C-alpha cells in the first residue's frame, strides 16, 4: 500500500510502501524496514481526509500518512485506532469525572460552607468584623446624614431595645446600639459591629410605636443569630468558587466585594424567617403585641407595590412575601397590651432628624392604609 513517511528529522515526506500486518505496521523505505506496534500508535489527523499515524511516546516526529479509504483495512488490524480515544478525544469517564468535580466544588462552596457559616463566622477574628463594619459604615455615611437633634430619641429607642433584649436574655444586649440616621429612604439594618441603623423615613412610615419596635426586634434577632457575618462567609465562599471555577473572570470578585458592602448585607430567606420568629419571641416576652409588626409588613408591601421592587427596604427585601409575614405576625398578636412607648416618647422619636410632626397630616405614615 502506498503511503508517505516523515522521519521527524527533516520537514519532508518520502514515498514508502506500508503493510498493515496483523500485529504491526510495516514501513518499507527502499531497503530499510521499520516496524511499529499498533499498540504504540496514535492518530494525528482528526479525520481530515488522511490517516496520519504517529508513535505515542516518545513522539519522535515520525509520521506515516495515507488516504483514509484504507480505513477498513486499518480497522481490521487495529480497531483501537478507529476510536475517538486514539484521536485524543476524552472518554466518558473524563467527562463524568469533570461533572462530578465541578458539582462537588459547587456543593462545597455553595452548600457546605454556607451550612457551616455560623461556626466559621463566629471563629472569624474580631478585627475582620471591625474592618467589615468600617466598610459598611463608610457606605452608611455616604447615603445618610447625622442627626443633631436625635440624642433623646436615640436614647429612648436604645432603652426600649435593651428592655426587650433583657427579657429574652439576648447575649449581645450590652453591645447593640441603635442610631437614627437622616435618609431619603425608609430602612433599618444591622451592621457587623452590632449597630442598628434606623432611618427617619422609616420612623415616619410607622403609625404607632409597636410598628417600629417590631422592626427593631427583627434587626436584633439578625444580630443575635449572627446572620450578618454568616452572610459575609457565604458570599465570600461563592466569590472564591466563581473566581476559581470560571477562571478569574471577575464575577467572584464582584460578589465578594459586594458582600462587604451594604448591598451585600441581604439575608437569605431562611435568615429572614428566623429573624421574624425570633423577633416576635422578643415582643411576646416583652409584652408587646406583634400586631405592630404585622401592620408594618403590610405597609412595606404597599410601599413595594407603589415604588417598585428595586426600592424595597433592605429589611424586607428578601424572599418571604410581606403579606404572608404579616399574616403570621397577626396570628400571634395579642389584644389589650400597652404600647411599647408612651405618647411623649413616641412623639420625641417621631421628631428626630426634623422628622414627622404629629400635627402634620401629610406624613407618609398617614398616607398608608392602616390595618
Amino acid at each position: 500500500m502506498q503511503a508517505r513517511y516523515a522521519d521527524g528529522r527533516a520537514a519532508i515526506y518520502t514515498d514508502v510502501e506500508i503493510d498493515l500486518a496483523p500485529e504491526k505496521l510495516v514501513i518499507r523505505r527502499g531497503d530499510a524496514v521499520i516496524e511499529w506496534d499498533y499498540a504504540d500508535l496514535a492518530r494525528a489527523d482528526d479525520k481530515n481526509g488522511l490517516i496520519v499515524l504517529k508513535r505515542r511516546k516518545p513522539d519522535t516526529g515520525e509520521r506515516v500518512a495515507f488516504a483514509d479509504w484504507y480505513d477498513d483495512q486499518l480497522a481490521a488490524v487495529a480497531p483501537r485506532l478507529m476510536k475517538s480515544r486514539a484521536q485524543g478525544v476524552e472518554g466518558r469517564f473524563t467527562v463524568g469525572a469533570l461533572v462530578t468535580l465541578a458539582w462537588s466544588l459547587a456543593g462545597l462552596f455553595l452548600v457546605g460552607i454556607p451550612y457551616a457559616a455560623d461556626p466559621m463566622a463566629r471563629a472569624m477574628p474580631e478585627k475582620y468584623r471591625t474592618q467589615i463594619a468600617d466598610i459598611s459604615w463608610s457606605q452608611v455615611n455616604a447615603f445618610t446624614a447625622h442627626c443633631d437633634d436625635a440624642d433623646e430619641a436615640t436614647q429612648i429607642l436604645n432603652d426600649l431595645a435593651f428592655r426587650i433584649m433583657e427579657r429574652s436574655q439576648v447575649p449581645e444586649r450590652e453591645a447593640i446600639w441603635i442610631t437614627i440616621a437622616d435618609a431619603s429612604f425608609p430602612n433599618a439594618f444591622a451592621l457587623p459591629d452590632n449597630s442598628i441603623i434606623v432611618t427617619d423615613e422609616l420612623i415616619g412610615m410607622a403609625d404607632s410605636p409597636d410598628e417600629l419596635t417590631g422592626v427593631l426586634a427583627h434587626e436584633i434577632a439578625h444580630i443575635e443569630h449572627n446572620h450578618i457575618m454568616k452572610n459575609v462567609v457565604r458570599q465570600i465562599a461563592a466569590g472564591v468558587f466563581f473566581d476559581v471555577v470560571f477562571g478569574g473572570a471577575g464575577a467572584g470578585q464582584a460578589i465578594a466585594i459586594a458582600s462587604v458592602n451594604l448591598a451585600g448585607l441581604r439575608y437569605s430567606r431562611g435568615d429572614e424567617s428566623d429573624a421574624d420568629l425570633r423577633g416576635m419571641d422578643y415582643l411576646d416576652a416583652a409584652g408587646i403585641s406583634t400586631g405592630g409588626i404585622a401592620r408594618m409588613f403590610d405597609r412595606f408591601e404597599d410601599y413595594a407595590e407603589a415604588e417598585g421592587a428595586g426600592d424595597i427596604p433592605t429589611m424586607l427585601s428578601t424572599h418571604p412575601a410581606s403579606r404572608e409575614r404579616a399574616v403570621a405576625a397577626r396570628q400571634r398578636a395579642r389584644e389589650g397590651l400597652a404600647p411599647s412607648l408612651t405618647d411623649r416618647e413616641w412623639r420625641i422619636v417621631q421628631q428626630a432628624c426634623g422628622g414627622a410632626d404629629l400635627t402634620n397630616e401629610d406624613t407618609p405614615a398617614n398616607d398608608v392604609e392602616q390595618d
Partner: protein
Amino acid sequence: MTAEAAPTQTFAHSGKFFNVLGLALKNAGLTIITLTMYRFWARTSMRRRLWSRTWVMGDPLEYTGSASELFRGFLIALPTFFLPAIFIFYIAPLAMEGVWAAWLTFGFYVFSVPMIAAARYWMRRYQLSRTRWRGIRLGLAGSAWGFAAASWGWWVLQSLSLGWYTPAARINRARLMWENTRFGDQPFQFIVEHGESPQKGMWLPFAMGWISFAIIVVIAPVIAGVISAYVSMTYGESIDPELLTYVPVFLVLGVAVIYGIGWLVCWAPYNAAAMNRIASMLTIDGARFKLRAKTLSLLGVTALGWLFIIFSLGLLAPVAGFLQVRYVLNRLELIDPPRFAEIGQSVLTDSNAGESLGDAFDLDMGVGVI
C-alpha cells in the same frame, strides 16, 4: 471514503462551518454542565479540529497538546495567580487598612498589564510547541518577561501619543514575536526592504481610522441626545412614564452599539493593511509570504465573529476564531518555498506550563489562534 481531500493551494483551510459549529455547540454544552471545568478539553478539541484542517503545501498541521496539560497549567496558576488574587480581593479588604488594601488592588492592576503580555507570550509558546507540520515542531524562543517589558513601554508610548504610536507598536510586537518563532531549527525573520518604513502602507488607513473613530466618539452621544430630546418633546406625554425611566439605558446601549460598529468599520482598512504588511515582511529560509486581506471581506468576517460571540455570550467564540483563521489562510501565499529538506527538528525545549495565565485572563476566547 475520503471525506475531505487535501487542498492543492499552498495554504488552505478546509474546515466546514457546520462541522466547526457542531463541535463548538457540543463543547458549549459540556462546558455549561461542568460549570466551565470542561473548557480545557473544549479548547484542545477545537484546536485539534482547526489545526488538522489547515493545509500547507498539501500536508495538514497537527495539534499535539492535551487538555491535561492545560488543566495542569490551571492548577499551577492557582497558587501563583489565583491565591494572590483571592488574598487581594477577599482577605486584604478585611485584614488591612482600607488605604493599604486599595493600594494593593491598584498595584495588582498595574502589574497585570505586563503580566497579560507575558501570558500572551507563554500561551503562544505553548501553542507553537504543540504544533507540528510534517512531524516537525514549531517553537518560540526568547523571554516572555522581556516581551512584557517591551510591550509595556510601547503601551506607554501609545497612551502618551493618544494612539498614534500604535502602528509602530504593532510592528514592534509582531517583529519580536516572529523573530523568536521557529519552524524546526529554522527561525522566522522579519525583513524590511532597504529604505522602506516598516509601517509602509499603514499610516494612511490608521489616520483615517483614528480621525473617523474620533468623530464617531464625539458625535454618537450628541445624536443620541438629540434623538432622546426629540422623542421626549414629541411623545413625552403619551409615553408611559415607566418606559421613560429606561431611556438612559437605551441611550447608553445605543451609543455602545454605534461605538462597536464604528470601531469595526473605522479600523478595518488599517487592520487589513497591518496584516498584509506584517505578512510581507516575514521570511523563513528565503521564502516570503503574501497576504491578500481586503477591507470589506475582513470587516465581514470580523463582524460575523463578533455576532457569534455576543449572541452566544462567548460560548461560540471558537467559531469566530475559525472564521478568522480560515480567512487568513485562504488568502495567504508563499513565494519561493523554503528548502524543507534542510529544515531539521526543533531543538527548543517544550513548554510545560500550559497556558495557565492565559486561561486566567481569558486571552484567547477559547481557541488560541496563533
